[in-house]
């Protein structure tokens, strides 16, 4: 159990989350991916905190969480808006704005 292990884990989770964000058709599914990504960031931060003893990393983690929540809140509201106007929540069908 050491820092690089945690970092590998964090990066791995991040990439898995990114995969979700890149492939999901449903906005909520996409948001799930994003959640995993920011969760991964937290893992990374706390890894640093554990193995260097910094408190700043922990503080940062708190803010990251709050931030993610804020984004999710807005995002879900947008999802509802999208559903209400377009009657679906599929990201790849919202492609009417283009050159």
């Amino acid at each position, binding site marked *: 159990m050491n820092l690089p292990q945690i970092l590998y884990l964090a990066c791995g989770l991040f990439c898995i989350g990114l995969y979700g964000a890149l492939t999901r058709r449903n906005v909520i599914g996409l948001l799930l991916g994003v959640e995993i990504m920011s969760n991964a960031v937290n893992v990374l931060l706390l890894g640093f905190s554990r193995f260097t*003893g910094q*408190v700043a990393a922990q*503080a940062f983690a708190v803010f990251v969480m709050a931030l993610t*929540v804020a984004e999710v809140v807005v995002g879900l509201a947008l999802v509802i808006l999208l559903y209400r106007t377009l009657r679906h929540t599929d990201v790849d069908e919202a492609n009417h704005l283009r050159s």
Partner: protein
Amino acid sequence: MSALLVGYALLLATMVMLALFVTLGKNLVHSVLGLALLLCATAILFVVLRAPFLAGIQVMLYAGGVVTLMLFAIMLTRRGAGVEIVNQHIPGRRLPAALMCVGLFGLLARAIHQTSNWPAMRSGPLPTTRDLGLSLFIDHALAFEVLGILLLAATIGAIVVARKRDHGEPEAQRRYGRTTLPREGKS
């Protein structure tokens, strides 16, 4: 010691599996629930990483709040009662996305691998919740205030966006708008 290690490894493996389940799963609701599990597993990891306070927040805020919100959102945007919510992948995107993610992971892992000048462990005990509290309210007091405003803004924003449209309302209601005026500003 080895048991701990095995447990640690199992935890990590679980987390990865759960993350994969969330991203690869076919059912949106299952995915959300998978995410809740993942977040809980992460909370356990946080405990292992000696950050119990954060573990607590993690469970409450994420697993409790976010996941619930998401479930609500799913319910609100169902296309009809009883229809199973399928969490599809966009066809033709999986391979490129996978390549990208693997590539990104490769780059990140390479960077981790090549890094040698890790910061040294600070002398003294690991930070406690008290230390965290002090840091938050002294070092990052202003940031904390800003966070408050940010959350306020997000809330107001969410309400503004998610509220019903104005214009579909009957003319009478519009004229006597007083009775139907939203009060979300109070939150």
